[in-house]
């Protein structure tokens, strides 16, 4: 019966960001992919420390890759993605992944500043940049930052807000939806019921449904 009690208590709790303490445990549950055609020694060390990171030399089937629902993807720029993105390589992959799954946190892994300048419009879509020559501890700290973003309900809400704004003209309604998500978000059914009182627009319901699924999949990790 304890599990049921825990579940009920959990469901009635408002949505919050992970505390520093919780994050230190939950970060190891983040699904991370690194895509680089060269061997990156940091990956083995991260795996040893408990990070769930998969090492790819390229992405051959991007849709299959997307289905794996990675929270954080570290993308090299040169030598990958030619099949999908041609000469724009990693930048093209970034665009494809961000267009298909904007909630995926993507780190561009590069020391090529000339390339960032050349592809600056695409570069804006990246969530973070990691220099290739960072020491292991700095690399790990940057990766933790990315996981923190990926596990932040606020980050996902802000992304979905853009979709909601297309279908809601009233700022008050948006604020109310935000309040409902934070207050009842752990109980998806209840949250959707409350949201339907504000808007019956199918796009709004679909958008909040997606958002709640993402947030709950993260919160369930703790």
């Amino acid at each position, binding site marked *: 019966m304890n599990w049921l009690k825990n579940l009920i208590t959990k469901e009635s709790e408002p949505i919050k960001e992970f505390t520093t303490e919780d994050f230190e445990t939950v970060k190891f549950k983040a699904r991370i992919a690194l895509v680089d055609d*060269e061997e*990156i*020694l*940091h990956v083995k*060390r991260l795996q040893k*420390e408990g990070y769930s990171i998969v090492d790819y030399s390229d992405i051959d089937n991007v849709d299959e890759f997307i289905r794996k629902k990675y929270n954080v993807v570290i993308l090299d720029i040169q030598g990958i993605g030619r099949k999908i993105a041609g000469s724009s390589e990693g930048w093209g992959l970034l665009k494809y992944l961000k267009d298909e799954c904007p909630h995926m946190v993507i780190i561009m892994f590069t*020391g*090529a*500043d*000339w*390339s960032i*300048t050349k592809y600056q419009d695409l570069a804006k879509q990246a969530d*973070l*940049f990691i*220099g*290739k*020559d*960072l*020491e*292991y*501890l*700095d690399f790990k*700290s*940057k990766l933790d*930052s990315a996981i*923190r*973003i990926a596990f932040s309900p606020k980050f996902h809400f802000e992304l979905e807000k853009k979709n909601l704004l297309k279908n809601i003209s009233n700022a008050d309604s948006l604020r109310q939806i935000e309040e409902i998500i934070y207050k009842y978000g752990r109980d998806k059914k209840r949250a959707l019921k409350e949201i339907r009182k504000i808007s019956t627009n199918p796009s709004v319901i679909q958008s909040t449904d997606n958002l709640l699924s993402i947030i709950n999949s993260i919160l369930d990790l703790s």
Partner: protein
Amino acid sequence: MSSDFPYCKISGKQIEFLNGKLLEIPKEYRKRGDEVNIQCFYKNLISKDVNSLVYGIDPFGFNYIIANNFCYVGLLFEGDNTSVFNNNRKKYSNYIFDKKLIIGLVEKERNLESFYEYVPIEIVTQNIHELRNLNSKISSNIDLLLNISEEDDWGTSFERSEENLKKIYVGSRLIKFILDNIKFYIPNYIEDLKIDYSRSFVVHKSLYKIVQIFKNDFKKKKSDISLDGKSFKKISGDKEVFEIVIMLLIENALKYSNDPTSIPPKVAIKEENNILLITISSFGNIIPEHEKSKLFSRGFRSTVHNSKVDGTGMGLHNAYKILKHFHSEVSYSTQIENSLIGWNNFTIKCSKIF
């Protein structure tokens, strides 16, 4: 390729006459009827394998100048005289140039084209990227060998490591420092830096690390840089970017010390009214009073150093600009006013600490 002045080049079996960025090709070169004559003249000229610079007057009465198949045409050099040439002078007064000036420009262009003097910037940037990538391989391997798994362990792990491992680590970090400094020449690079303020770091640990790097550098005469004071205060931002500032200031201190072996630079850290003060001092020529305000300006080099030590005048400027991202500032002071020699102190003031 394009040029500031009108020029010609072989295009298939024909000679093509093209406009320059500053001057268009005189219309005589476009006239039908004169084509055969002028085509023959320039074909003959360009097909000769001439390394040295050749110039003269063409059948249209314009000057040409050729070097390595690169040929300016349609110009008028001051001093040359023929009847056609004089007619052209009246018609094309904008096309009259000093011969020496044009020769100088053509030589410069030829050297650029033939890579005699300069390496193209694309090759430099591409190779810097490759170097950075290769350096990252050294860096990650040495990281693994040093086996530093926590920031708190850095000091003890580094100290107990073998000397040759320390050297490889230091070498790799100094290469990164050089490559980082090249990046700072990209316009607005520092201004556009995106700092991750969700990260934070203990400043003292960064100071300790950078001091160790310079203490273990490759000089035969070691400089025993001291680090005084202790603080556990943190600031927000990317540690590795802040560490570049410390490297810039310590490198500066070593460079401008009169004798860094017998009087090594000093680094000190202290807290004062919830402000963190980091001072990097070197014993050497004192910066004159009238130059103090320009010390952090781009490209500025003090008169007390510029003839003795090579430099670009970019280090202090870059440090100053990077520190703005950390809500910090750097200032210069000296203990003895009106003296020629003494301690030069650069103090970083970090006000947003926790």
